[in-house]
């Protein structure tokens, strides 16, 4: 009997029967499912504290219920609404910058003929990943100061007449944060694309070579299609993160360089939650904000996934 046939779940076959046939696959995945249910889902009981005036010292159900008050408090605060806007804007900018720089760097590296040069460039560009945000942001604050190197270059190129106050004007902040993030992480982010390029069959390049295709043509028709599924999958995942934000892009950078006159542009949800939630012992608020982020994330994730499916692109789910 044809084994492949048997393994393919056909409509009309009993679910359990198919599962029994696929028991080896189940063995490779169901224990992990139980694991993740325990470690990621069981602690979600904590979400009920969003509906309480919760104090950790008090046994859980002795805390007073407050209904939706934590949520309504959050959405009544102008700062929280600004924080949503800032988180979203910075996430979008980061997503675009990081994706473009990672793919760009990977593609260009892929075109380098010398293996040694390729490895050297790759190693060097990924090194800043190991610097802490304090160091990187500190250097950026030097570079973008009124008398910093960026203003000097722009002045000497004649692009500006007066030094720009990059660090003190809100309209620059999101872009600056994006550039700093890209500076530190482009090399690191490109690794994933490099590894997916390594799966491209070299025969394709050889064939194109014989056909006399130029560099750009090979990039457009072989390299980029070869990493497309990685790109789409990462994109879907990241779209899900647009409002929840990341630890570095939406906390470290704005926390280190925005806690002053720029606060209207730099305060993200996580910073707001730290200041008005955790630091004040208001865990209910922190949890409420967390639930809000999760719900929006899941909505974005499924929407992105659905769009990808409509466009007949690879999907995450």
């Amino acid at each position, binding site marked *: 009997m044809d084994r492949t046939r048997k393994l393919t779940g056909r409509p009309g076959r009993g679910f359990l029967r198919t599962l029994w046939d696929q028991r080896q696959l189940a063995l490779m995945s169901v224990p992990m499912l139980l694991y993740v249910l325990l470690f990621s889902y069981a602690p*979600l009981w904590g979400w009920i504290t969003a509906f309480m005036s919760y104090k950790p010292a008090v046994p859980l159900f002795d805390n007073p219920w407050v209904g939706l008050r934590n949520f309504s408090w959050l959405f009544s605060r102008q700062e929280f609404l600004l924080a949503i806007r800032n988180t979203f804007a910075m996430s979008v900018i980061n997503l675009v910058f990081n994706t473009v720089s990672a793919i760009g760097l990977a593609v260009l590296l892929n075109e380098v003929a010398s293996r040694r040069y390729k490895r050297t460039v790759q190693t060097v560009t990924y090194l800043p990943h190991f610097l802490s945000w304090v160091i990187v942001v500190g*250097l950026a604050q030097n570079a973008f100061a009124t008398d910093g190197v960026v203003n000097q270059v722009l002045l000497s190129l004649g692009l500006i007449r007066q030094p720009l106050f990059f660090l003190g004007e809100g309209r620059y902040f999101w872009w600056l944060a994006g550039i700093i993030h890209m500076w530190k992480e482009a090399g690191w982010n490109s690794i994933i694309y490099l590894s*997916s390029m390594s799966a491209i069959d070299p025969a394709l390049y050889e064939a194109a070579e014989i056909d006399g295709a130029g560099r750009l043509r090979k990039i457009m028709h072989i390299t980029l299609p070869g990493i497309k599924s990685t790109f789409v999958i990462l994109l879907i995942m990241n779209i899900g993160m647009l409002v929840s934000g990341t630890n570095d892009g939406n906390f470290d950078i704005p926390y280190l360089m925005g806690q002053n006159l720029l606060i209207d542009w730099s305060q993200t949800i996580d910073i707001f939650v730290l200041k008005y939630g955790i630091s004040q012992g208001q865990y209910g608020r922190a949890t409420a904000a967390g639930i809000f982020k999760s719900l929006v994330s899941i909505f974005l994730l499924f929407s992105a996934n659905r769009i990808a499916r409509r466009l007949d692109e690879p999907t995450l789910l």
Partner: protein
Amino acid sequence: MSGINLRHNPRTSRWMNILFHTFNNAFLLLAMLITLYPVLNTVAISFNDGTDALRGGISIWPRVFSLESYRGVLADEFVFSAFQVSVARTLLQTALNLLLTSMLAYALSRREYVLRKFITTVFVLTMYVNAGLIPNYLLISRTLGLSRSFWVYIVPTMISCFNMIVIRTYILNLPDALVESARIDGAGELRVFWQIIAPLCLPVMATVSLFVAVGAWNSWFDTHLYNAGRPSLHTLQYLLKMKLATTQASSNMAMQTTTALAARAPTTPVTIRAAITVISALPIMLVYPFLQKYFVVGLSIGSVKG
């Protein structure tokens, strides 16, 4: 590959190639310069005299050479044991995580698997739901009793969803024929995974081990939460994080007091911070080339096929 059968004038093409390479190399050189600068700057500061470094302005060479920061950090008698703990946790966590994550990725890459969609969704959602610190802490510390033990570094970190997706995407990109042919031979799933898929996945496995290893090596928060009271289980990053915090905290502590007793900063943070960065990144740096060769130079699928 419909577009590439267009013929080009070979001379124009050669010209274009040279132009492309010039541009490419110039761009990569620039990228190297702007990413190398912060690194060299940090190294230079780490070898500078602490008090002198306070006035800033050091670029890529120390102004007043000194080893005091390294001496200050490495003099700690717990550094060596912390290094051992860090190495052990990184190796074990990486090995286990890689094994379990890639096995799961393989199972979820099989389109006909009936639980595929359900399990994938359950895993993907973990990236977007977060219970908050306290419930997680209570689970690991109270329910599972993992505090004050080495296993708290391993048990909660055995599978990573992001990496699973990365590996799964890679497997889905592999030519179907390879898998099919193996299956026709009558091989079980475990054998297909172990003997056919895993070797083909070396580049992505190398990438994922790098992700896991760097994450494991750099983490200090679990030590802080669960093992802070057990110096013998401190990791290197935790120790260094503490050292950094100590040099920065003295002025914060001065606010608690009204006298000079605590005000004095014991060392200057700028150079210590740089030295700590170098010390903590160096071991990963040394291991890096061994992983890098898999995804940078790549692995010819054709050769495996043949």
